[in-house]
């Protein structure tokens, strides 16, 4: 049983999604129950997997017992276990929030939601480059439909851009995979790492081209500077629970960059070592700057949160760009924080919009809110967490990032990171004072918000104090994860025990 646990994060949402297909509309209670139960089960599975990975042992699941490098393997190490857990926690908040009524605004919400989880989990687990493509496609297909959930002009327009860009990205992914297969003769990432280390020199150019094309694809998913223009509109127009779940989607791109370049193009790659480094480092800084401007310019709360996602992408990429275990550890801590908090803020923005009637989430004078005080408290916690003000997790994460920068990197990272935090702080306090204090006179009207929505938001935002309270264990786990990533040889030897003999 235990050895099959690794495949559960993929199989569980798949089965749940199939059960949910039973009828397109109706059966609301049945669908909600199946979806919530499946997501909670997923949380327990991922906790068990995290404990398994925490021992430091790398385990893998060979599908159909076809061994690597020929079969498809799912690999569980500390990094993938952590990402799975973050996804499951985020998903619970989003799915409970959706059960308050958002899921009935279109058809098949829960089924698509589960399949999106299937794609995300698969992408975190796979040890094979082509399978990464397949799981990317699964999560994208589900996300196309989820983005359109509920319909409306803004969503359709944002979808056209999102779908076309991602289809072009998928084509590029296939070309990159093709080049890498042609040059190295394998698709398994661990095997590819060995082959790249012994690559004849005349193939260096091919592998470089393939690897940098992969960076473009991952950059599109992660929303790095020249490739992020789809993000603000898509995230701002998506239904709230979907936008919250999308908070992990940019991190899938970050994860892929971290995985592929630390494993395949690590120390053993010789002349090809760190070939992505200058691109990632400088583009991350540029992303940070652009996102800071975007945060200041946003005139809508949802758009503001979408730009905050971009700020986090810039910060995370800078962590990858520094290429030290310390920076990777800091970025993983920051990743947990930013995923959950921005997800929670998307949900909160929806609740604020619902209570303000016609003004919605636009930052203009609106009618006073019925539950204004409670919403304002939550907004305050979320805002200071995401802007990086003590005592919440944002401050801790950003301090770790700043501390990880060395020498010349400080000169660039410190001003940009601090200025973007300042921009977030200014924009969020302006948004908060407009939303909660500058309202029309008159009676409050409207109905109280459903309890499930409160649960979703509180569940996600409680990460802010919890991550500080548990900062010790969390950061020692991320430190161990970073050390494991810095030594890809262990993973390679686990997957391919006789790799030495073959050569």
């Amino acid at each position, binding site marked *: 049983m235990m050895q099959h646990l690794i495949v559960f994060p993929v199989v569980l949402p798949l089965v749940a999604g199939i059960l949910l297909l039973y009828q397109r509309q109706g059966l609301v209670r049945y669908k909600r129950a199946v979806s919530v139960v499946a997501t909670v089960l997923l949380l327990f599975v991922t906790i068990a997997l995290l404990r398994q990975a925490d021992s430091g042992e790398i385990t893998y699941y060979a599908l159909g017992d076809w061994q690597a490098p020929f079969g498809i393997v799912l690999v569980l190490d500390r990094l993938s276990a952590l990402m799975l857990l973050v996804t499951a926690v985020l998903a619970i908040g989003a799915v409970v929030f959706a059960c308050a009524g958002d899921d009935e605004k279109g058809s098949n919400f829960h089924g698509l939601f589960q399949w999106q989880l299937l794609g995300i989990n698969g992408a975190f687990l796979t040890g094979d480059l082509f399978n990464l493509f397949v799981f990317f496609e699964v999560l994208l297909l589900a996300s196309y439909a989820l983005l359109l959930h509920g319909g409306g002009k803004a969503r359709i327009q944002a979808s056209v851009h999102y779908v076309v860009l991602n289809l*072009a990205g998928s084509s590029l992914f*296939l070309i990159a995979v*093709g080049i890498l297969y042609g040059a190295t003769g394998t698709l398994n990432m661990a095997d590819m790492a060995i082959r790249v280390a012994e690559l004849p020199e005349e193939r260096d150019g091919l592998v470089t081209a393939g690897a940098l094309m992969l960076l473009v694809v991952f950059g599109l998913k992660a929303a790095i500077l020249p490739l992020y223009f789809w993000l603000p509109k898509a995230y701002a127009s998506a239904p709230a629970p979907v936008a919250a779940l999308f908070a992990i989607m940019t991190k899938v791109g970050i994860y892929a960059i971290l995985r592929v370049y630390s494993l395949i193009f690590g120390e053993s790659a010789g002349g090809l070592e760190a070939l992505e480094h200058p691109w990632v480092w400088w583009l991350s800084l540029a992303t940070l700057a652009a996102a800071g401007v975007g945060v200041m310019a946003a005139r809508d709360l949802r758009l503001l949160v979408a730009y905050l996602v971009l700020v986090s992408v810039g910060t995370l990429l800078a962590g990858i760009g520094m290429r030290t275990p310390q920076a990777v550890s800091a970025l993983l801590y920051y990743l947990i924080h930013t995923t959950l908090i921005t997800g929670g803020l998307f949900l909160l923005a929806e609740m604020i919009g619902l209570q303000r009637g016609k003004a919605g989430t636009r930052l203009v004078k609106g009618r006073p809110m019925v539950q204004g005080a409670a919403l304002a408290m939550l907004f305050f916690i979320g805002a200071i967490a995401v802007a990086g003000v003590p005592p919440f997790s944002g401050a801790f994460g950003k301090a770790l990032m700043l501390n990880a920068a060395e020498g010349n990197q400080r000169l660039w990272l410190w001003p940009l990171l601090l200025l973007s935090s300042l921009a977030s702080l200014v924009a969020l306090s302006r948004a908060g004072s407009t939303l909660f204090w500058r309202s029309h006179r008159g009676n409050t009207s409207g109905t109280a918000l459903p309890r499930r929505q409160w649960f979703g938001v509180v569940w996600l935002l409680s990460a802010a104090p919890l991550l500080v309270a548990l900062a010790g264990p969390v950061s020692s786990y991320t430190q161990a994860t970073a050390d494991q990533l810095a030594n890809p040889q262990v993973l390679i030897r686990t997957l391919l025990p006789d790799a030495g003999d073959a050569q």
Partner: protein
Amino acid sequence: MELLYAMTTGVLTACGLYLMLRGRTFPVVVGLTLLSYAVNLFLFSMGGLTTDGPAIVSEENGYADPLPQALVLTAIVIGFAMTAFVVILAMRARSEVGNDHVDGKKEDRE
């Protein structure tokens, strides 16, 4: 044969990219289709080109690499489904927004 193959793939890619950068949804969809054809051809060639090779490993020297064929099959299925989806999406955008510009603009900005 390699030269002809490379040229075909290249021309398809170039046409696909050009059409994808157009302002109306129909050329964009056609461009995506052409690009996915080009990608399929490219994937097909990534194991090296062989003619008349058996599809499975044989005793004789030389066989066609079966992996690219499996990958192309996957890519074709995904590409086909996505083309269908994007056509429907473009039609819905046309009916909801009222014109077929990718940015939903009224004026003709070709």
